């Protein structure tokens, strides 16, 4: 246990060093955020949201999505994938650690450290923008607490999903497919592109059932107040159930792969 905790800590500290990248990331996310906010504003001015959410809620939802973008599982652990490609993964197999847990811990750090660096400036500046463009604080302290808890759930879920992406690259072609396809599903069905409450009424049951809602939509809805804090236990259960499914799939795939692994010498 102690070994795994220090993996998280070491990676976390290492990743905090990438400050220039963080500044560039904040700039990019701001730019995207502005364009998205302007588009959603014009849609709200052109038609009726039919009670799905208010403009202020949609704008806050979008800024949250940009602030927390670093947590999105749209790729695997690039260092692990590079090791799998060049064969250095053999060293990983020699360590007296459970390899799934080891990679999972690396991901925990990968999804938190950059997000911490990038989200704070975005929260601050987006909160200070003129009315109509700004991120608004959650409606109550309970909503804020529910958001924090759901973010933790999203983190666990996202790392389980990312780990499947890393592991699937052990199969060259299938892995490339996962690397390309999964991000599209994640972006669309998590609410990162368009807030899920704005999806058609008939699609609500589907998008809410899918695991991807747990990555962005559930935390965001607590923050903007379209979900009441009282449903937190149910939502956490949903996030954790999907996490368990993905952990089982990932660990199963890894076991399958390590059985037939051939390391080429040289």
């Amino acid at each position, binding site marked *: 246990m102690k070994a795994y905790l220090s993996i998280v800590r070491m990676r976390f500290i290492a990743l905090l060093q990438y400050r220039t990248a963080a500044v*560039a990331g904040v700039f*990019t996310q701001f730019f995207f955020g502005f364009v998205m906010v302007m588009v959603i504003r014009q*849609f709200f001015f*052109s038609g009726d949201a039919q009670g799905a959410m208010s403009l202020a809620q949609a704008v806050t939802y979008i800024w949250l999505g940009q602030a927390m973008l670093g947590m999105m599982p749209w790729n695997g652990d690039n260092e692990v994938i590079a090791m799998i490609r060049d064969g250095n993964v053999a060293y990983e197999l020699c360590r007296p650690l459970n390899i799934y847990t080891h990679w999972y811990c690396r991901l925990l750090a990968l999804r938190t450290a950059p997000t911490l660096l990038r989200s704070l400036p975005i929260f601050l500046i987006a909160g200070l923008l003129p009315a109509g463009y700004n991120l608004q604080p959650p409606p109550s302290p309970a909503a804020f607490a529910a958001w924090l808890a759901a973010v933790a759930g999203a983190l666990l879920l996202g790392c389980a999903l990312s780990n499947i992406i890393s592991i699937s690259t052990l199969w060259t072609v299938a892995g490339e497919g996962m690397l*390309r396809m999964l991000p599209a599903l994640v972006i669309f069905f998590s609410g990162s*592109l368009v807030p899920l409450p704005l*999806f*058609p009424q008939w699609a609500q049951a589907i998008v809410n059932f899918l695991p991807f809602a747990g990555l962005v939509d559930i935390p965001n809805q607590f923050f903007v107040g379209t979900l009441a804090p009282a449903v937190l236990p149910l939502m956490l259960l949903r996030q954790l159930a999907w996490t368990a499914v993905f952990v089982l799939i990932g660990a199963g795939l890894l076991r399958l792969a390590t059985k037939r692994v051939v390391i080429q010498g040289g």
Partner: protein
Amino acid sequence: MNGISLYFKLIRISVASQMQYRASFVIMSMGMALVTVIEFGGIWVLFDRFGSLQQWTLAEVGLFYGIIHCSFALSEALGRGFDIFHRYVQRGDFDRLLLRPRSTVLQVLGQELQLMRFGRLAQAMAILIWASWTVGVQWTVLKFAVLLFAIAGGVLLFIGIMIVQATVSFWTIQGLEFMNSFTHGGTYMAQHPLSIFDGWLRNFFLFVIPLGCVNYFPVLFITGKQDIFGTTPLFQALAPLAGAVFLLVSLYVWRFGLSRYQSTGS
């Protein structure tokens, strides 16, 4: 061997090498198509909810979307060498190109023709055909010429952006991520009509990075829709020239960067 035939020879080699991995090519192209299809899905979701975007319909927005994604797909396929140029600088591989008695621009462009981008191109063309059929565009030779001109102008503009990005990497390879704002962020912006955005963003995409010129004005010309800026059809047809101008400027920037380049020596 002159420059043009050398370029085509390099491209033939690149295509042949990618065709050695046919399954990868197919899967990656499908992935690229899926990634873009969901972006149009996002626009569809908002139209389904709100009905219209100012005076624009979904199919009309499909024209903006189709043109800009055709341009972006082609420029990513052609300009891949500049897109990943920072890797050559980091590894010192660029020094090898400098030793050859050929133009650096030609050699970098000839590094790779990335075939998987054709997945995005195919999907963008499908949307473009659907959109023009639904809008009921009365095609003439002149309108079709303006369409091709607009796509070509977009390709030149995006390659220009990639060349500027590559030039920045002569000084630093840190934080290049912010250039994504102009490529991916620019594409996201340009898949909506320019007239919906706030003044400052609109001016940025007309006068700094003239994405509006290669996409917004030509669509007005093709559909004959009223322009809020009051431009004439002649101007609308010729506006994509701005892409060529941007590329010329970026080539000057490149030449300046090249004159200041110091190898890492590794």
